[in-house]
């Protein structure tokens, strides 16, 4: 089957999917997933077999992104998270008119907070919890910033939860819509969380970041906050930028403007509810 996914700023065409995978994706994207129609798509993905023999014996699949195969082959069971990673890869590899940061984004009262951090820092867990608790989660993975307006675009993408964070979110967010758990990927166990209906997402509008928070989950630790300078913030944002080097002066100006206009802080926490209260106070 070939489907189309409209994530908001970008559309994806995905070929070669089986009915069960389409069903799982439908649960995450609702009516933003449709059978592919004629038209233009920003990114094209294709799920292919690696050899005729491996269609039948130890079935193996490979994801092609615009004709490039950036990942190792996978089994059918690992397709769902791999498609999500491939969609991220497509945007990071080919989209260079917006500054893209490895960062979660949440918004309240029209004010965005960036959580730039590498994998395993807990940024997806935090963004998912906040997105469930009254914030608008624009993304759990990638901040796309217009270099002219400095606004961050909302993305209709599920949050990607790994290992223990699946249980954490299941406990903290009772009615959250979780996908089946994909076990044993190279990042461990993965589940995806859909927080919004398409109608709810329709109210999300691009917003300027007002704060940059570098979060770190530390078990049993009281929430501690350390303000950081704009210079340090610039350096830390730079480490999490996917295409800063490609965007040249525009990338530098955007990153410089964000680090000088946004209050930046490092926060260690163990109680997400406590952190929610603090962050809500910031954006009132």
């Amino acid at each position, binding site marked *: 089957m070939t489907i189309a996914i409209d994530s908001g700023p970008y559309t994806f065409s995905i070929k070669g999917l089986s009915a069960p995978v389409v069903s799982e994706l439908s649960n995450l994207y609702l009516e933003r997933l449709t059978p592919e129609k004629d038209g233009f*798509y920003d990114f094209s993905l294709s799920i292919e077999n690696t050899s005729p023999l491996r269609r039948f014996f130890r079935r193996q699949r490979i994801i092609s992104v615009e*004709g490039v195969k950036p990942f190792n082959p996978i089994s059918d069971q690992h397709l769902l998270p791999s498609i999500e990673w491939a969609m991220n890869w497509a945007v990071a590899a*080919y*989209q260079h*008119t917006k500054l893209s940061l490895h960062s979660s984004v949440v918004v309240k009262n029209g004010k965005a907070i960036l959580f730039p951090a590498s994998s395993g820092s807990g940024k997806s867990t935090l963004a998912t919890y906040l997105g469930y608790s009254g914030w608008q989660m624009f993304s759990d993975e990638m901040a796309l910033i217009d270099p002219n307006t400095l606004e961050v675009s909302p993305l209709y993408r599920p949050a990607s939860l790994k290992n223990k964070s699946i249980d954490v979110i299941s406990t903290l967010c009772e009615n959250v819509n979780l996908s089946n758990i994909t076990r044993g990927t190279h990042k461990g166990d993965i589940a995806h969380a859909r927080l919004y209906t398409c109608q709810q997402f329709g109210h999300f509008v691009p917003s300027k970041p007002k704060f940059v928070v570098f979060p770190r989950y530390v078990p049993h630790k009281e929430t501690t906050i350390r303000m950081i300078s704009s210079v340090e913030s610039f350096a830390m944002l730079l480490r999490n930028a996917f295409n800063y080097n490609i*965007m*040249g002066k525009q990338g530098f100006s955007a990153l410089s403007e964000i680090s000088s206009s946004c209050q930046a802080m490092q926060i260690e926490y163990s109680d997400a509810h406590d952190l929610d209260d603090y962050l809500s106070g910031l954006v009132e």
Partner: protein
Amino acid sequence: MLSQKQFLNAYCYLNGFDDFDANKWNSFVRVLRENSLVASFYHRLERSNQLYCIPEYCEDMFLSAINFANAQVIQTEVQGKKLIRLFNAIDIPFVFLKGAAYILGSKRNSMGRLMTDIDICVEKENIDKAEEALLGAGWSFKNMDEHDDKYYREWSHEIPPLKHDNEGVVLDVHHTLIPPIKGRLLDIHALIHSSESDSDFSSTIPSRAWLVLHSALHLILNEDVKNGLRDLTDIFVLLYGEGSASENVAETEALFIKEGFEQEWIVLSLLLEDFFNTEIGSEHASANLSLYIRMRHFILRKAIVPNSSFIQSDGRWLWDSVNYVLGYCSKMPLHILFKQVTYKTYRNLIKLAFGEYFFRKPKPKRNGL
């Protein structure tokens, strides 16, 4: 999906966009993106004052590709300066080839053209000294199996590819332009001293005729023409995109003949005629051409068209297979060809049985993706 004619009409002649709906644009830009031709096509369209043809929904894709290509220019200039400094210090003359030469020589075909590595050429007597200097300056050889290492060391026209440990750039160091085992030797001293200027970069950029000769040999004497349309576009723009086309063509033809590649010049002329409607092929079209020229021209004309699921193809695998054999035959003597084909066939059979990725080495974890 586009027909081959629709694709080539749009790509080569910059025509037919009036008939392009969103579906055709989708197919067209997919093929461009798969073949790293998005930004260079945009620049060709810009030079012909036809940017208005690009619909708004495609603009972001083109502008992203332009930004990427512009970043590559900066990276190439930085690496170019470092290599010039390194080779000046050990007093080894060298030239840049292909993509790096186009960028550093400010050739028009470099605009938006992407590349995966930097190519340079030194004379064979300097290859050991060059290798030693590069290894001492942070470059190291990429991992490869014993067969591939032997292929490079004994049969090829370049040493195994080097990668910079910190900067991720790949460098190919050539000592000639085609594998010397075929017995067709080029005047590499003349290539290295063919530069038309003494300035920093310019002194390391071969003359236009040498750039075309190298690109043509890469296209015609090769088993892999995945980037064939890009190479032919390079040649077309080099010859017809700047300066006097008739002088460019005359100088280039003279070099091909001097270096013993008259047949390849005819094949190239015919291909330029086919794809870009130049007139240099017409004088050969009715001539009594050799079987080699006829076969090479016929197969390349089929195999150069990008292999994509967005273009209709008829028997594509056949043209690629025939080109694979003819390309190897063109650059290797039969006894080495036999060894090479046996080895490649073994690997391809294993891949067919166990998957294309059987020999792929695990990749380091990507940051969060």
